[in-house]
């Protein structure tokens, strides 16, 4: 039978094409691509180009000199980076156990509890920031409660400063961290964890040696996402910072009102844009490194 059996192993034509996939369908994406390119890509490129044009209309680095000579800008950048780092750290600490527990619970229970994550996710950023302000302000709910219980005598300074901004931003970013991590915890092969347990590993050890390493890409993606999104925050520091916490997005808006030519704001926005791209690029590198490492360790 060997001859004929070998003959039947003909190459199957590309399934994708046989299924009616074709490049012609891509034309339907044209309106959407046109909108994004026309209303986002081109404006951002125009903004980048304008940042290299000075007030007299000639090409120069004047706007960037302006940035460098602005004495308040180093503080702004430092504030932005440290807030982003704090929020990322807090999200990892607060969110990882939650994502893990949700992934271990039965799907139905987890689905219900996930609503608690999704509700804030889809609630207006302004509303959530306002809610945090009501809680954290000098005579807000947290201080009132602490004092009435007797834990503190003086109200704590929880709003109109860095602390308040970080607390509120962490609250806002947590869903962005928990959701992807939850998904990657769920994807882990349960059989492998059971096998490790069967071989005598303690549950805690299984978590550290099997579960967490496999969820690495989710952890990384969630962490980077939080970090990158924190960079662009405007609303929360503006409201909870009480004028004392200035992040890059606020500085851009200030420049827009401050300087008659838009180039300065454009230059700072370009810097923020590049920081975002660099961070995303770095994240991609890390992901590629991780997947390579995984495939090579399997081979």
């Amino acid at each position, binding site marked *: 039978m060997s001859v004929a059996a070998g003959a039947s192993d003909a190459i199957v034509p590309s399934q*994708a094409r046989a299924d*009616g*996939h*074709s*490049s*012609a*369908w*891509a034309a*339907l*994406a*044209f309106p*959407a691509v046109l*909108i*994004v390119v026309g*209303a*986002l890509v081109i*404006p951002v490129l*125009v*903004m980048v180009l*304008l940042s290299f044009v000075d007030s007299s209309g000639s090409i120069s680095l004047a706007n960037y000199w302006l940035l460098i000579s602005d004495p308040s800008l180093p503080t702004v950048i430092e504030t932005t980076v440290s807030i982003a780092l704090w929020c990322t750290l807090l999200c990892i600490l607060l969110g990882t*156990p*939650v994502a893990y*527990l949700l992934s271990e619970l039965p799907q139905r229970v987890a689905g219900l*509890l996930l609503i*608690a*994550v*999704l*509700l*804030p996710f*889809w*609630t*207006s950023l*302004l*509303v*959530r920031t*306002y*809610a945090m302000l009501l*809680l954290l302000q000098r005579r807000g*709910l947290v201080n009132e409660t602490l004092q009435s219980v007797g834990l503190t005598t003086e109200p704590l300074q929880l709003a109109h400063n860095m602390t308040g901004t970080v607390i509120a931003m962490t609250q806002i970013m947590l*869903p962005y961290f928990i*959701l992807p991590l939850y*998904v990657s915890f769920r994807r882990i092969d349960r059989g492998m964890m*059971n096998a490790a347990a069967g071989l005598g590993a303690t*549950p805690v050890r299984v*978590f550290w040696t099997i579960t967490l390493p496999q969820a690495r890409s989710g952890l990384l993606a969630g962490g980077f996402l939080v970090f990158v999104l924190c*960079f*662009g925050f*405007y*609303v929360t520091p*503006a409201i909870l910072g009480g004028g004392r916490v200035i992040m890059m*997005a606020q500085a*851009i808006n200030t420049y*827009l009102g401050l300087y008659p030519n*838009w180039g300065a704001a*454009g230059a700072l*926005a370009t810097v*923020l*844009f590049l920081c*975002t791209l660099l961070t*995303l690029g770095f994240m991609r590198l890390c992901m590629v490194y991780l997947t390579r490492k995984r495939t090579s360790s399997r081979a």
Partner: protein
Amino acid sequence: MLSNERQISHGRRAWLYLWTSAVLAFLVAPSLIVIPMSFSASNLLEFPPSTLSLRWYASYFSSSEWMRATAISLSTALLTVLIATPVGFLAAYAVARTTPRLGSVATAIIVLPTILPHIVVAVGMFFVLSWAGLINTITGLTIGHVVVALPFVFVVMLAALKSYDFSQEKAAVSLGASQFRAVIDITLPQLKMSLITAALLAFISSIDEVIISMLVSTGSASTLSRRMLVSLTDVIDPTIAAISTLFILVTVSVIVIVQLTGNRSALVPGGTER
């Protein structure tokens, strides 16, 4: 059961339960506490309110400024939904049916608005819209909001199309329907729920959008969210508690509708504004 041996025992997991409850409370409670506070009669918005009143709601509905801002927000959101839903659906359909290479290029472009800081997008848009004379117009605002809403529609519809059986369309064509008619008769009716979800998410994303609105609609053309921001960074008007409650109500109803239509996964994001 083996799986229980692997899991950390319930007793030893107590801290995990506690931690999770605390974090979930931290996530949900702040927004929920706003609701009773909005019914407080006092300027200080106590919790729990000592006397109940609807004065902040009255203040909202009787203010011509708040009402004008609301009208602008609602009409922009409506226009955004009307544009973003069909455009996003077409793009998702294209990506679902085209070659993987072209599909991933289109996807990368369409989800761009979710990863770039909105301030960057807003500044760029502000420049271009100023030249076009579209600042402080609903047209300009809608262009901005469509860009923000498109990825939501796209992601929801793509997920729906990935699990849709395209051979039904093929069957319709074999039975004599043109390709266009097959989409209208067979595909769209089956994706109805996802389309509703996508439209609702586009609506919320437009209503909630702050940063682009802040730059491209000012003065009497301000959206609700911009007016709230201005009030919050200046002298806080307790009316905002009432408005916030209405916002939360909208979000809760959208989530309930989406859960009821069995489209839960649509709510899980791949990243978005801020």
